[in-house]
């Protein structure tokens, strides 16, 4: 393994690694704009120029491979002069409208200007004026703020493979643009906003909503498909404002799909179920969660007492594994022969595969299976053992196990209305406790309706299509009136205490017991107590 010395620090590198990457891996910061580990290296922004002993010129550290014994100076007078000059150059045509810029607070220009720039500009001429452009359904381009790092252009060529963005013009007049009538609307388009080191590419969805320094981050997992993309939920005052990708080399790399990016909107959906209902005199009336829950438990217990094997629990692939485990155990505690049914697993026809526009190499996959945890629920059901079935068997009625079901606990939680068309006969009869986050024809005809918490409001873990179990943490508390499923199921089991995903995973045994949040993301538990 080669070792290099950067500013007097000895840094271990991998073979054929670039100096900049080696420094970043070792936690030593060198400035960079155009360099992104997930894209090709143009070495064009020139902010990362360093002095290497034995080379008379400055060299771009992003593009200089390490050599054992290399001595690099990033704070030598020559390198510092170059950094200062590049910063000054980048700012001469920059509007410096940080007070109204969404990027302010997470802007490389601001950071490097502070660290490497000069306090004053000597530019006395008129700035070049460039227009604002609407480049896609979700993206604005403020070309005047752009520093031409071309990360976005390279992204659309090398990752999404759609090549919508290009560089128009030449020299100081050049701008990023789209081809006429061809907006940047691919399913990964939102990533160009994350990539932009300055405030040039902005998300219309987040525009002017929140200053970024107010946002807090919580690690989470994408709820939209079985890929299990790693994300950060960014929130303030109990409101999730945006979702950003979280790097995971094995799963999603640096990118997330736009479906994931805007999936947080379910949390703020106006139609969300926010209180419990129970059927009284043939119609659903609003009630407290406690009352509805007690009513449901009493009814289920009496059904179970009449005959064994008459209860079922429909475990939704939107549930966390821990919740599924608790609900499954609870329903079996009431009726040992209860049937565990895997809820519907909606699926698109095929995976969306993205390829490098030139090499054709596969860069990103959006999975066809549009739920995050079908694998995890299957695993939980098989770990719990006993009678089980799936949703199709339930609605077609082919499975003899399902002939004499009298009541069940049905969990939805899907991001959109999951009952398409008429309510299936199997779901229209018997005593039904429905726990969901959006109203459906099922919740309208159920006997008890319990509001569910969205994934951003609870802890848990999901298993992606490849069998990788990934934990996620609660960013915010559920709206008033909603009790987290975990707490309800603990009550259903007759246990006291607050739902703690990590402790439940220990109970569940392997492979769940070994799952825990990456240590850098573990936060002190929020002091929230269940309503019950």
């Amino acid at each position, binding site marked *: 393994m080669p070792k290099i010395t950067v500013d007097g620090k000895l840094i271990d590198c991998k073979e054929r690694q670039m100096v900049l990457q080696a420094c970043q891996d070792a936690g030593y910061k060198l400035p960079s704009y155009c360099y992104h580990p997930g894209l090709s290296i143009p*070495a*064009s922004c*020139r902010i990362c120029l360093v002095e290497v002993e034995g080379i008379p010129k400055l060299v771009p550290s992003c593009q200089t491979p390490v050599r054992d014994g290399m001595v690099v100076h990033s704070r030598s007078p020559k390198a510092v002069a170059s950094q200062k*000059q590049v910063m000054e150059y980048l700012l001469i045509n920059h509007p410096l409208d940080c007070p109204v810029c969404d990027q302010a607070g997470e802007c490389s220009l601001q950071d490097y200007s502070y660290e490497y720039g000069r306090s004053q500009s000597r530019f006395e001429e008129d700035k070049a004026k460039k227009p604002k452009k609407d480049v896609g359904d979700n993206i604005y381009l403020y070309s005047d703020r752009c520093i031409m790092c071309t990360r976005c252009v390279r992204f659309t060529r090398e990752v999404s493979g759609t090549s919508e963005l*290009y560089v128009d013009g*030449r020299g*100081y*007049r050049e701008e990023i643009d789209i081809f006429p009538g061809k907006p940047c609307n691919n399913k990964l388009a939102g990533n160009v906003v994350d990539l932009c080191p300055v405030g040039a590419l902005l998300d219309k969805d987040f525009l002017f909503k929140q200053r970024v320094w107010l946002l807090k981050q919580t690690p989470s997992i994408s709820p939209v498909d079985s890929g299990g993309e790693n994300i950060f939920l960014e929130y303030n005052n109990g409101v999730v404002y945006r979702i950003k990708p979280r790097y995971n080399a094995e799963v999603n790399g640096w990118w997330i799909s736009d479906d994931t990016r805007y999936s947080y909107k379910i949390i703020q959906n106006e139609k969300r179920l926010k209180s419990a209902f129970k059927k009284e005199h043939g119609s659903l009336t609003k009630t407290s969660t406690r009352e509805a829950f007690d009513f449901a438990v009493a009814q289920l217990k009496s059904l179970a007492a009449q005959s064994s094997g008459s209860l079922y629990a429909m475990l939704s692939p939107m549930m966390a594994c821990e919740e599924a485990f608790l609900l499954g155990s609870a329903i079996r505690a009431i009726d040992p022969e209860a049937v565990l049914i895997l809820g519907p697993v909606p699926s698109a026809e095929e995976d969306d595969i993205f390829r490098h526009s030139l090499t054709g190499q596969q860069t990103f996959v959006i999975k066809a299976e549009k739920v995050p945890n079908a694998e995890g629920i299957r695993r939980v059901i098989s770990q719990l053992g006993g009678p089980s079935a799936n949703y199709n068997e339930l609605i077609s009625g082919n499975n003899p196990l399902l002939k004499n079901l009298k009541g069940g606990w049905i969990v939805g939680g899907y991001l959109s209305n999951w009952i398409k068309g008429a309510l299936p006969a199997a779901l229209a009869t018997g005593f039904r406790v429905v726990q969901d986050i959006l109203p459906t024809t099922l919740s309208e005809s159920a006997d008890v309706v319990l509001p569910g918490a969205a994934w951003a409001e609870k802890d848990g873990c999901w298993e992606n299509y490849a069998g990788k179990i990934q934990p996620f943490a609660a960013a915010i508390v559920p709206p008033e009136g909603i009790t987290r499923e975990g707490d309800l199921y603990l009550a259903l089991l007759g246990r006291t205490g607050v739902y703690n995903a990590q402790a439940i995973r220990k109970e569940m045994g392997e492979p769940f017991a070994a799952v825990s949040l990456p240590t850098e993301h573990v936060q002190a538990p929020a002091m929230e107590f269940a309503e019950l």
Partner: protein
Amino acid sequence: MAFNEPVLTKRIDADPGKRKLHFYDDYVATGGYKSLRAALDMTAADIIKTVTDSGLRGRGGAGFSAGQKRSFIPREKKGLHYLAVNADESEPGTFKDRYLMDYDPHSLLEGVAITALATQVDVAYIFIRGEFHHEIKVTEQAVKEAYQKGIFGQGGIFGSKHKLECYVHMGAGAYICGEETGLLEALEGKRGWPRNKPPFPAIAGAFGRPTVINNVETLCCVPPIIERGPAWFKTMGTPSSPGPKLFGMSGHVNKPGVYEDELGITLDYAINKLSGGMKGGKHKGTICGGISMGVLGPEQLDIKLDFDDVRFRGGCLGLGTAGMIVMNEHTDMIRALRNCVRFYAHESCGQCTPCREGSAWMKKILDRILAGEGRARDLDMLLELEKSQGIMPGTTICGLADGTAWATRTFVNKYYEEFAAKCPEERPTQMGIKRGIRNVTTPMGSNTR
């Protein structure tokens, strides 16, 4: 050292009225393709050795040894090799390649074929500047002839086993595509943004394959070298820069045009003997090799025009393409520099920050000086900005930025008084408002408004 007869221009009459376009028959009748036939009997290594021995240096501007360049191409062939002919002649003041293509296109094609033999090239691209409509037509016609006569094509060069395809590729008129890797990118159908080196084109050039890139004039020098040998070639020019050279004389001279002479003639000779002397006044300065090389001052008429003297004694970047722009005493040097910098600001490809922003900034400063708003600190600013760009300090990917730097450096330093006269020291006026434009460099909070 003597230059007795024209070499590159032997088919081009000195009298413009008698010049004639030489196609295949005329070319062969005047001794054309003899060298190619001779080269077919030589081994690749021999051809490279002959060219290296001749000391031929690239005529495209950098003056790199042409033989050495060929020797970088891997000997063991593992796939296609390419040759890219740089006919994207866009340097202001340079019009020599065009002259050769205008009248003697087959000498270029012969050079292409010999170079292809030496470096086992399979496909040659002649990258011609988009504005050269006539030259494109002529060269295409010549290439067509060469195919018919069995030089190019799958029949092999004159029936030998070495096959060579040749295409004329039309550029879109960007100066940056004359930079060798910018040219390769444009050739591949991409935006003409120069590549980072390494890898050098000799290892991974066009389409990722080993590629030789040569200027038109360099290739035209190859057939005479093969025909008459390196020793003869070395009788012309200076020991470090042997051979004939086309000098493109323009500006304030009586007879502007392309003249062939040996390397190492003095500037005085070039102006007074080749191009009929100064017009309209005394010599004030000469841009020696396209504007990127900088300017030779009024007292530098004794500078020898070769690749080294211009650089070491003349204080310029080099001889460049030897496209001389001669300026007489009435020339406004600030205007001249502004024109050069305007060109670079316009032609900067926009990839590297220092060149993209710096050239535009310098242009704006010069515009302001010309508008009578110059201040003494502008000159310091210009001299500081030029130092921060170019491949020599390592701040840019390609050498285009060096053009801005050297033009500014030489102009401002050699004509400092003239610049300083337009850039007076600042005098605060009554209200404390500095003369000229708004003052944005005042520290925040200081009460100068």
